[in-house]
């Protein structure tokens, strides 16, 4: 875990600042409902969220592919509208979809991307990127002859071809095998070590847990939480005590309010969340209080709440 500690630059000014960002698509659908977010220079930031949450929309606005309806974004203090050229030069984007010109060769398409971003041709740099992504053997193959995972590598190579200072990875591990995933994370760590800021989106909590310095959760166009991973991990230390009731409970008696119990939808289970790290778990007094309130239980079990649960709760609690 120590290898994932935030870099020393964590307190440096934000490299990306998003303020009151809203997006309403032409269809009338409001995909982003006022996002405020600061990305710190040199960190790995994971954007988590269910399908349709607005992750790709947010990334697309920062990268200049989608227009914001209102709000501002600055990249390295360049406004993405007023200072678009300076802002975009620093960014590399690996899109979610496998969109790539399949008639080009691997080397040509990477070289194209480098030129597009205003960099002088550099066969040496392209070779390095292709080697890092195990694509060197395929350098003269047409993209259409490659497998899906290989195509994703090519997309990453294109994004890295112009030596970006900020890298967006939109669901980089969708449809990718274990080996490539490992290669990819090695590469991401190496990039961060060289000072590149990385923003990735994912559906997999484990992935965010493994890679990120900080995690942001998006749901229905809103940023529900932004926190250091360590902080979220601390929440992972919580446990839950689940009591199965012999009879259905309509509501939790007021006398038990202090325990912040959760009643399952069908009224047959009570859940008590406690902190294993604290000295007193409160279990004994809870059981006493339950007996006093005349609530018995058939069975009980405990479980650890995972980041997954935290995520699911955050997402579910939204109106």
């Amino acid at each position: 875990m120590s290898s994932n500690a935030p870099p020393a630059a964590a307190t440096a000014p934000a490299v990306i600042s998003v303020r009151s960002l809203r997006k309403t698509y032409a269809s009338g659908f409001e995909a982003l409902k006022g996002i405020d977010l600061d990305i710190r220079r040199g960190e790995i930031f994971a954007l988590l969220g269910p399908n349709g949450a607005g992750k790709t929309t947010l990334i697309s606005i920062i990268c200049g592919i989608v227009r914001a309806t209102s709000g501002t974004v600055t990249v390295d203090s360049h406004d993405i509208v007023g200072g678009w050229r300076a802002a975009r030069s620093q960014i590399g984007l690996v899109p979610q979809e496998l969109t790539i010109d399949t008639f080009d060769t691997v080397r040509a398409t990477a070289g194209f991307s480098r030129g597009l971003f205003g960099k002088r041709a550099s066969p040496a740099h392209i070779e390095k990127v292709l080697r890092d992504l195990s694509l060197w053997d395929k350098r003269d193959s047409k993209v259409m002859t490659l497998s899906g995972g290989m195509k994703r590598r090519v997309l990453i190579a294109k994004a890295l071809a112009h030596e970006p200072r900020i890298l967006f990875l939109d669901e980089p591990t969708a449809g990718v095998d274990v080996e490539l995933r490992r290669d990819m994370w090695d590469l991401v760590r190496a990039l961060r070590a060289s000072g590149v800021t990385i923003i990735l989106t994912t559906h997999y909590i484990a992935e965010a847990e493994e890679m990120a310095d900080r995690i942001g959760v998006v749901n229905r166009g809103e940023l529900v939480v932004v926190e250091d991973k360590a902080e979220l991990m601390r929440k992972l230390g919580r446990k839950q005590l689940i009591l199965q009731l012999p009879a259905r409970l309509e509501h939790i008696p007021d006398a038990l309010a202090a325990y912040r119990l959760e009643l399952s939808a069908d009224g047959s289970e009570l859940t008590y969340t406690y902190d294993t790290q604290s000295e007193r778990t409160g279990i004994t007094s809870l059981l006493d209080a339950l007996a006093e309130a005349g609530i018995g239980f058939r069975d009980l079990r405990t479980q650890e709440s995972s980041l997954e649960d935290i995520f699911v709760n955050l997402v579910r609690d939204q109106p």
Partner: protein
Amino acid sequence: MNLHAVRAIYVSEMARTFRTLLQSIASPVISTSLYFVVFGGAIGSRMPEIDGVAYGAFIVPGLVMLLLLTESISNASFGIYFPKFVGTIYELLSAPVSALEIVLGFVGAAATKSIILGLIVLLTANLFVPLHIAHPLVMVLFLVLTSVTFSLFGFIIGIWADGFEKLMVVPMLIVMPLTFLGGSFYSIQVLPPFWQTVTLFNPVVYLVNGFRWSFFGIADVHVGHSLAMTFAFLGICLAIVTWIFKTGYRLKA
């Protein structure tokens, strides 16, 4: 100015042309030759001279114009439609390239291809009818202006089109008729006065006649009008392209 980007787009578009070199060059050369065999040879031998120019030679500028128009439009429209269609447009939109740089790359490549094809067809025509070019510089000027203008027009169509049908419909339903009715194969003086006036609203008339003047020194409209009309159309296309990138029309959600 991001010249590296202009170059990258231009080179990649030209590479697309060379990948399909045979279709790119063979089909226009063959179809032009067929026009010569039919119009120049079979029919032309029975046609009188027009203003002292043999019919076979008279139609050469019109044929080259027909080729420039259709090739410029189809190349440029496909060039920008394809990235939109497969989604690779994301890279253009996220790159530090301005509208001008994108247009220079795409339209430059499409126009280059048209000019090369135009010259090849002229050489082919020379095999059928001996050609003498009276005003070579004006000829080159019209060749380049027409290629650039209609590549821009094709670029606009490529952005506007949201399906392959739309990509085809403008060249087929508008450009072909305008070219055929624009005096490519006849002098508009053979038309009744009323239709002559109507024809003067057809922009292709000015292109064909300007181009023809550069060959033979004869034309139905003054070469100055021809140049003015070509520049006017170029200006209109430039204005539309500027508007497209300002508003993100059909490019950005």
